[in-house]
């Protein structure tokens, strides 16, 4: 005990009476020590406090989760015979009694309604939508959409999107070309689902980039939403925004829009190599034999990956017009080009494999190995 008392006295003296007599570096060190110790202690307090409040929030969350999910699960298991109004009239008064101002409850309620709304089709959606409105949650979503904070905006947009509140489309369109990429993407996604007349209007005004990631998301929404009226995407292939062109090319490909053939062929002269490559890919996929000559014309000016794509597309079309060209490619110095040309030859439905076997007899050892590789169907190209 004496030692501890001594230590405390020593520390106290060091930081009071003696502090000014130390050389400046030692003095600074003492102050840094003091700072570190206090900071560490404060962090302990903060961590402890945080854990406690987390535990508390979790308790509340569990409680409300149980409550809300029981109520909603009871609500959605009505019979076909029940009328929507009757169901609402039965459950609304009970839910109205909940302390809806409670943040945790509000969060739980919204997220569970959203989950059920997107998991089930039929009358349930209607019932949940009516309840959402009657409980005033739609007004809260709208308020969120017009908040100043982008995270809150996104939250509101998501709610409107999931609940399919179509009148919010007008509020959302203004964000579809926002500087903030995340907000932009969420708005575009929601707009497609919510706009009744012109879900692709945002493509006309898109100046900001649609990132590849967001193209994936939009592509999924557009191709999975069966209620959507699909326009001809060739109308945006002249957009000055390369990312819009790219997205529309992917959609032309997915929906096999043959009416875009001419526009796609024109894009072979585009300045962006990624767009050129995608156009070539589509020409192959749609087997647009009319574009073969244009592809051949640009071939020698292209980087390697576009060349490979052209060979691939020539193979898919396999009209026979460029067979000699494909044959000549197997004497290229680049193994990848050779392989791709061999695959293209193999694709010829009638006698592709035959031709390769014939070729095998009269070519170099290296090419023979490549032909074996190409003929081995267990290897995926």
């Amino acid at each position, binding site marked *: 005990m004496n030692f501890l008392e001594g230590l405390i006295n020593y520390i106290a003296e060091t930081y009071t009476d003696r502090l000014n007599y130390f050389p400046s570096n030692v003095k600074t060190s003492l102050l840094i020590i003091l700072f570190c110790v206090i900071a560490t202690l404060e962090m302990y307090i903060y961590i402890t406090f945080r854990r406690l409040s987390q535990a508390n929030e979790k308790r509340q969350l569990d409680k409300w989760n149980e409550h809300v*999910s*029981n109520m*909603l*699960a*009871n609500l*959605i*298991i009505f*019979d*076909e015979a029940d009328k929507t109004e009757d169901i609402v009239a039965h459950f609304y008064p009970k839910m109205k009694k909940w302390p809806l101002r409670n943040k945790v409850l509000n969060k739980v309620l919204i997220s*569970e309604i959203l*989950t*059920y709304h*997107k*998991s*089930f*089709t*039929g009358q*349930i959606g209607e019932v949940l939508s009516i309840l959402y409105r009657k409980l005033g949650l739609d007004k809260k979503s709208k308020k969120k959409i017009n908040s100043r904070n982008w995270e809150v905006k996104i939250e509101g947009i998501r709610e409107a999107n999931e609940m399919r509140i179509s009148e919010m489309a007008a509020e959302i369109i203004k964000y579809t070309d926002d500087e903030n990429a995340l907000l932009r993407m969420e708005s575009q996604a929601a707009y497609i689902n919510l706009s009744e007349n012109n879900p692709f209007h945002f493509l006309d005004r898109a100046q900001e980039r649609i990132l590849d990631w967001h193209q994936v998301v939009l592509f999924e929404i557009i191709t*999975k939403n069966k209620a959507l009226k699909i326009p001809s995407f060739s109308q945006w292939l002249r957009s000055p925004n390369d990312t819009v062109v790219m997205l529309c090319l992917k959609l032309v490909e997915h929906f096999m829009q043959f009416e875009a053939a001419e526009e796609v062929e024109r894009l072979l002269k585009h300045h962006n190599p990624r767009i050129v490559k995608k156009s070539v890919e589509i020409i192959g996929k749609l087997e647009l034999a009319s574009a073969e000559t244009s592809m051949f014309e640009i071939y020698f000016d292209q980087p390697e990956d576009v060349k490979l794509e052209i060979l691939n597309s020539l193979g898919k079309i396999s009209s026979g017009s460029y067979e000699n060209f494909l044959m000549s490619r197997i004497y290229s110095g680049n193994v990848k080009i050779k392989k791709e040309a061999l695959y293209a030859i193999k694709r010829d439905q009638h006698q592709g494999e035959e031709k390769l076997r014939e070729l095998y007899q009269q070519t170099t050892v290296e090419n023979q190995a490549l032909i074996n590789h190409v003929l081995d169907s267990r290897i995926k190209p």
Partner: protein
Amino acid sequence: MSRILIAEDEVLMLKALEFKLKKDGYQVDVASDGKQAMEKIKQNTYDLILTDIMMPFVGGMEILSYVKNDPVKKITPVLLISAVGLEDVVLEGFRLGAEDFIYKPFNLNELSVRIRRHVKQNNFA
């Protein structure tokens, strides 16, 4: 009373299905992941198994192939719930012997009718 097992990892979905099938008058067992489901299937005999495809540890396809390769249990109808409409998964499921496929989002009342039919057919068989 017919006995049904539901395997589903989304808590809310599981609850909705459980409530619905209980209301329809079945005796319902639930499993919140594939592993639990497997244990229950090994211990009990069910009149129908309703399982999600994507679950932690053991997926719905694995459960399906276990049931359909068991000489006794293979008569149990298995219904798969799938969120993604991937054609090859569906084909693989039917090949392995699944009785039916349900895509999310689905109509709960329609599911209830389908289940009733499969349970009935099974009891007559």
